[in-house]
């Protein structure tokens, strides 16, 4: 049986966890939904888009030459749409409280407090990706004006060369930060003790036992 435990409904999740610890009506193997299907599709589509963008953006720099520009801007538009979708979904259907860093999260470092839905490390990773992707998307959209596309009149003189320089620096910095973050993110997702989070991002669920062992239902 799968109990609904959506990212966006913190109160329901807390009640769910509290109910299970009080009446034990469900066994320890019960599945509790951590990520809804739509969020998992968003995550893996974003991941694939990121790999395409990093590959098309950085492989030519290390000497692997191919026609990368068209693939890059098309993937960039897809990433922009994904980011917009995520912003709307998190503002309208989800609770920002679950991902926001609070002073009480520091208690996780000393082991005095169990994390809520997301650990402090997961929140920091999310915020770092937010910074990198927002920078990449905003500068990338501006850089579209330098590329020949079917829907925009090409205008490389939209900004002065000095301004373009700043835009390029920010775009490059966001790409390099993304690369570092992807390396770290993939490493942590493959660690045996973190495997449950990878499973949750593939299949959607944690067991009730895992939730009780690693998370605090009252802080969800």
């Amino acid at each position, binding site marked *: 049986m799968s109990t609904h435990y959506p990212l966006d409904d913190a109160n329901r999740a807390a009640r769910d966890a509290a109910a299970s610890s009080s009446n034990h009506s469900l066994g320890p193997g019960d599945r509790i939904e951590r990520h809804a299907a739509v969020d998992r599709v968003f995550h893996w589509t974003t991941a694939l888009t990121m790999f395409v963008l990093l590959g098309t953006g950085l492989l030519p720099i290390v000497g692997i030459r191919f026609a990368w520009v068209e693939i890059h801007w098309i993937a960039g538009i897809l990433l922009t749409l994904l980011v917009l979708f995520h912003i709307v979904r998190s503002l309208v259907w989800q609770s920002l409280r679950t991902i926001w860093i609070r002073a009480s999260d520091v208690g996780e470092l000393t082991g005095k407090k169990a994390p809520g839905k997301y650990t402090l490390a997961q929140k920091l990773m999310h915020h770092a990706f937010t910074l990198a992707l927002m920078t990449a998307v905003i500068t990338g959209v501006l850089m579209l004006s330098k590329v020949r596309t079917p829907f925009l009149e090409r205008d490389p003189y939209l900004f002065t060369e000095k301004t373009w320089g700043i835009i390029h620096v920010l775009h490059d910095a966001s790409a390099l*930060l993304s690369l570092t973050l992807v390396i770290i993110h993939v490493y942590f997702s493959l660690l045996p003790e973190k495997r449950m989070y990878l499973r949750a991002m593939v299949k959607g669920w944690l067991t009730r036992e895992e939730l009780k062992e690693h998370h605090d239902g009252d802080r969800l």
Partner: protein
Amino acid sequence: MELFRHGHDVWGQPVVDGLAWSLLDVAVGAGLAVIVIHFIYRAVKMNSSHKRRS
């Protein structure tokens, strides 16, 4: 180490073109450094908790 790529504008004035691509190595190196440091920390922590249990 150079931080930026430089070029010239139409008047021949030097302008910044972007970040220096040598920073690509730094980005990869930073990611790998986090992995190595965490892997060592994890091994030490697992070893000490294993000793405490036995």
